[in-house]
């Protein structure tokens, strides 16, 4: 196992802008894929007559993904630079799979935003319905502050490798990110061509006008976020495996606290206690996991059917909170008419997505002063900020943002669109017996 510090990196952006290709090329150039995998991907691409997609095939391994040329599920890969050890998460860009992207974003410390510079593609991503826009909003909502914007497909601009086009994109994307609260000192831009690796690992001969660092150089400039090791343990579950001969293996990222082999942990909302028999990260056994580590941990005392994505493992003496009701501060960013009591969007919070019904519009807030502007408004419109009460339709683990930021910020989606974002101010806990 590498001794370098660890960072989780998600690759996001509009469908087909080149995320998988970029990751595939990066991993291959740096020798983090074995011969066999590379050969298999090349052959599969050839067989389907899609040789240009061979790099994407290194990550898109499901039959459905390859035949249709889109990423559906998250792929987690390991990769190292001079300074860091990365878990790189390739996310889908297709609008139907935004929920998978959110799950990935909830586990990331930093993001590479891939934006195609090709005419039409860039515009589609930045349109009102586009995922360049939506992913920027969601990444910020899920707590990602460091972003490297890879302006991709520079070979396909008109004329090719056009500096003007690059500048136009940097300007527009930058403005948009700033308006959503990004600290632009932590946002970097680089023009790239994914299949040839230009400005990814080596400088591009075709873009002499660009003198900045390569994408890889920028990766080494990322900062390690603080590790809240002193807080109670919280691991939102991303997936659960049941492996014959081994048992139940939940997979997720440690958000707070420390997990050691032999520890007892409690899974919420079921309230069952289990003992940790082993911890693995990237097929390597470890004795102890800390905030930021993506792990699979084998537990005894619980069955597969007891846990699912969105559940949270935590300390037995300070178990994760199951929410009966949430008080949240939200911002409505998009809605065709008005949000009223009874509105039931799907709330995406850490790895969970559960529909929550708005039961009270407590107050509307003046975005300038942060003070109450209206008590119990009848409805909220796009652009409004408000304090609301929400009731989860199903069991949901949520924490106050102040105490566990990663478990207290959320996006609200409805009809396939992101309608708002928010943070949990207070949680009315539901009583759960710990078994």
């Amino acid at each position, binding site marked *: 196992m590498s001794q370098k510090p660890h960072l989780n990196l998600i690759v996001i952006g509009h469908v087909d802008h080149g995320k998988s290709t970029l990751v595939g090329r990066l991993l291959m150039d740096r020798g983090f894929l*074995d011969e*066999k*995998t590379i050969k*298999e991907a090349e052959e599969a691409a050839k067989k389907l007559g899609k040789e240009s997609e061979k790099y994407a095939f290194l990550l898109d*391994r*499901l*039959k*459905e993904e390859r035949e*249709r040329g*889109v990423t*559906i*599920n*998250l*792929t*987690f*890969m390991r990769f190292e630079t001079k300074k860091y050890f990365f878990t790189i998460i390739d996310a889908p860009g*297709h*609008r*139907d*799979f*935004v*929920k998978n992207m959110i799950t990935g974003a909830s586990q990331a410390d930093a993001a590479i935003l891939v934006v195609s510079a090709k005419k039409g593609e860039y515009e589609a991503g930045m349109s009102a319905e586009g995922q360049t826009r939506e992913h920027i909003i969601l990444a910020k909502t899920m707590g990602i502050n460091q972003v490297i914007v890879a302006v991709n497909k520079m070979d396909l601009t008109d004329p090719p490798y056009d500096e003007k086009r690059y500048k136009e994109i940097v300007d527009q994307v930058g403005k948009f990110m700033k308006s959503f609260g990004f600290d632009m000192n932590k946002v970097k831009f680089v023009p790239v061509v994914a299949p040839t690796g230009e400005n990814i690992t080596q400088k591009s001969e075709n873009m002499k006008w660009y003198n900045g660092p390569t994408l890889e150089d920028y990766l080494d400039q990322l900062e390690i976020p603080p590790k809240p090791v002193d807080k109670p343990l919280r691991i939102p579950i991303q*997936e659960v*495996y*049941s492996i014959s001969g081994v048992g139940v293996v939940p*997979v997720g990222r440690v958000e707070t606290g420390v997990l050691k082999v032999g520890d007892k942990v409690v899974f919420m909302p079921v309230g069952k206690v289990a003992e940790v028999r082993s911890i693995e990260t990237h*097929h390597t056994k470890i004795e102890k996991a800390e905030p930021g580590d993506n792990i*699979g941990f084998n537990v005894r005392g619980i069955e*597969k059917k007891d846990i*699912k994505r969105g559940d949270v493992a935590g300390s037995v003496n300070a178990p994760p909170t199951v929410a009966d009701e949430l008080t949240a501060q939200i911002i409505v960013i998009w809605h*065709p*008419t*008005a949000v*009223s*009591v*009874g*509105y*039931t*969007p*799907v709330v995406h919070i850490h790895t969970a*997505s559960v*529909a929550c*019904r708005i*039961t009270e519009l407590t107050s509307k807030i003046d975005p300038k002063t942060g003070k109450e502007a209206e008590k119990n408004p*009848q*409805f909220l*419109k796009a652009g409004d900020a408000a304090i609301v009460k929400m009731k989860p*339709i*199903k069991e949901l683990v949520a924490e106050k943002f102040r105490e566990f930021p990663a478990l207290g910020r959320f996006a609200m*989606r*409805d*009809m*396939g669109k992101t309608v708002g974002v928010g943070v949990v101010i207070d949680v009315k806990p539901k009583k759960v017996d710990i078994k």
Partner: protein
Amino acid sequence: MKVLIRELKKWSAPATVLLSLYIPPGRPIPDVLNLLRQEYSIAQNIKLKRTRDAVTSAIQSAIDRLTQIPKVPENGLVIFCGENFETEESKCFVFSPPEKVTIFFYRTDKYFHVEFLEDMIEETDVFGLILVERDYATIGVLKGTRIEVLDEFEGFVPGKHMMGGQSQRRIDRIIEEMYANFLKEVGEKANAYLLPYLESQKLKGILLGGPGYAKKDFYDGDYLDYRLKKLVLQPLYDIPDQGDAGLKELVMKAQDILKNQKYVQVQNLLEELKYHIAKDDGLVIYGIEEIRKALQMGAVDSLVVYDEPNTELEKLAQEAENYGTKVYVVGDELPDAEWVKKTFGGAIGKLRYKIY
């Protein structure tokens, strides 16, 4: 029938002691009696005496009633037996319903299973709703103003975590196999839930959706019964979510096909009302007296009323109908009903023109 259902719905028990039995026509009585006798002997093993006594006596009275009936009537037979734990009164309801029983159903539960009877008296059309993706599915129905989730389940199709290295190809193959098995399971469940509606001729169509391509694989792969498949309406819809939220999206995305369905009409009306409220253009009216006045002026185009029997609201709905206003009575099944009730005292209408 409605009165009977209301009575049956009042029954509930702290343990699973209330017996519901639906027998379709043509089923030989001795077969059913055999099953009940088996259930009787199984029930004798129940540990709690109170529960055991209640269950066995419910089964015994069902057996007693059934032995007196020579043949299942033309529309089938329905039996509910049980003891009311509070009053300690035991009762059996035996009757042949107004419409054909299409399923055989036996269960002892904490309540009587009247949902099949409810379906019978409901005169509305039913649309089947299916959402399917690689490892998750939701099956439901749309009836009137109600969207019901019948089942929501996960398939254990792993993602891409464990892959890489040696056995990757083998794992890929296993994953594809698990995916196909999951689609098969979805098909079986959809058939089980939706065929009864087809047989009672209520099923007018099926909407199929989900994220990505799984819906197409599901449709092309003949996992659905051929009669149901014929009812699948095109196109297949791109729906990112599952569960209740996903079904609502599916119905609203298909609103062109479903424009005569009450759910879609109410939902659109409510959205329109919100739009007018937000614009504050005087085209919305609420308050029972205000609405009455507007009705007399013939100014109310449509009205949403919260469902509360024997109240002013019910009267208002009746009056509005007499004036030729489109009236939608909504209950808690509709998310916005709470808003109508809390914020507007249970009635809100759209005006044809401004009256103030």
